[in-house]
């Protein structure tokens, strides 16, 4: 069954929960990993992903299918992630400002893994990127989304999305090369 058919089923109220669960099963991992790449912390990614899916449940009745479900879903995820980062920034403004950039804590061997020097550098470099550039880069590099779709998700133009990707690569390369 396609996403479209599941959405119609949900909107008609026939086995609403079943249709939603199917959609969730199909997209939960992509959404979660995209968010985790943005915020790094597992708990934060979990909170944001839950908020995303609750929003999907509440708003799916009004979704007119003018775009693909995945585009709409990632747009919700993008907005929720930005809101979360902004909120976190506000909360931590008075405490550890120097440790935080763009609402993303600099890595310190999270997930119990021993990071190599280059890995730490990369994560620092990612943390330095503005949220939009980071989101565009992750969607393009890891999900291989086309720029039209990325532009729709992030509310920018195709040229803007390409520029964001280019800037992200450039900054990360520069930061990795720094001693």
């Amino acid at each position, binding site marked *: 069954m396609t996403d479209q058919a599941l959405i119609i089923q949900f909107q008609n109220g026939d086995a609403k929960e079943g249709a939603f669960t199917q959609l*969730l*099963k199909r997209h939960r991992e992509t959404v979660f990993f995209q968010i985790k790449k943005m915020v790094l912390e597992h708990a934060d990614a979990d909170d944001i992903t839950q908020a995303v899916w609750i929003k999907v449940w509440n708003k799916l009745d009004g979704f007119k299918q003018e775009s693909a479900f995945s585009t709409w879903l990632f747009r919700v995820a993008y907005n929720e992630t930005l809101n979360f980062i902004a909120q976190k920034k506000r909360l931590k403004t008075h405490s550890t400002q120097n440790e935080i950039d763009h609402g993303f804590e600099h890595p310190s061997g999270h997930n119990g*893994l021993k990071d190599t020097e280059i890995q730490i550098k990369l994560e620092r470099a990612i943390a330095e990127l503005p949220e939009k550039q980071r989101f565009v880069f992750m969607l393009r590099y890891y999900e291989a989304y086309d720029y039209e779709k990325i532009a729709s998700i992030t509310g920018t133009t195709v*040229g803007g999305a390409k*520029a964001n990707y280019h800037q992200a*690569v450039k900054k990360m390369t520069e930061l990795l090369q720094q001693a």
Partner: protein
Amino acid sequence: MSLIYDMNDINDMENESISKALEEALKNFETKTKQVPAGYFDQFELDLMQKIKTQMQAPQKARIVTLFLKQKKYLVAASLFFAIATGYLFFNKAENTTTQIAKVEIINIETLPDELIEAYVNNNELLAEVEWNSAIETVGTNLISIND
């Protein structure tokens, strides 16, 4: 840096390759971010559905519905019309009431008994005569000035 990119710049961006070192680091980054506790997604689904059910069972907040929101301009126009009409009727009615009082007084004079009218005339005869004489004098004075 300019914010405007032409097509050549965009094509260059597309063709720009990612260095080996960055590629390797990005690969490791993905492996690291993809690590989740065993059974995490199944548990996630259960927790989420539980939250949604709780949300659905929670008493819904009373929705505030603004009545006639779409007909707002018509309502404003109707209110203005009502206010103007009420004002017009009120003042018009007041005018009519005054006229009626005056009419009542006239009717009362007409229905007065003759004796009362005669008494009034007798009492005011002198005054009327004085007024009459002064009127004649005025006319006379005017005639004299014309003759002059």
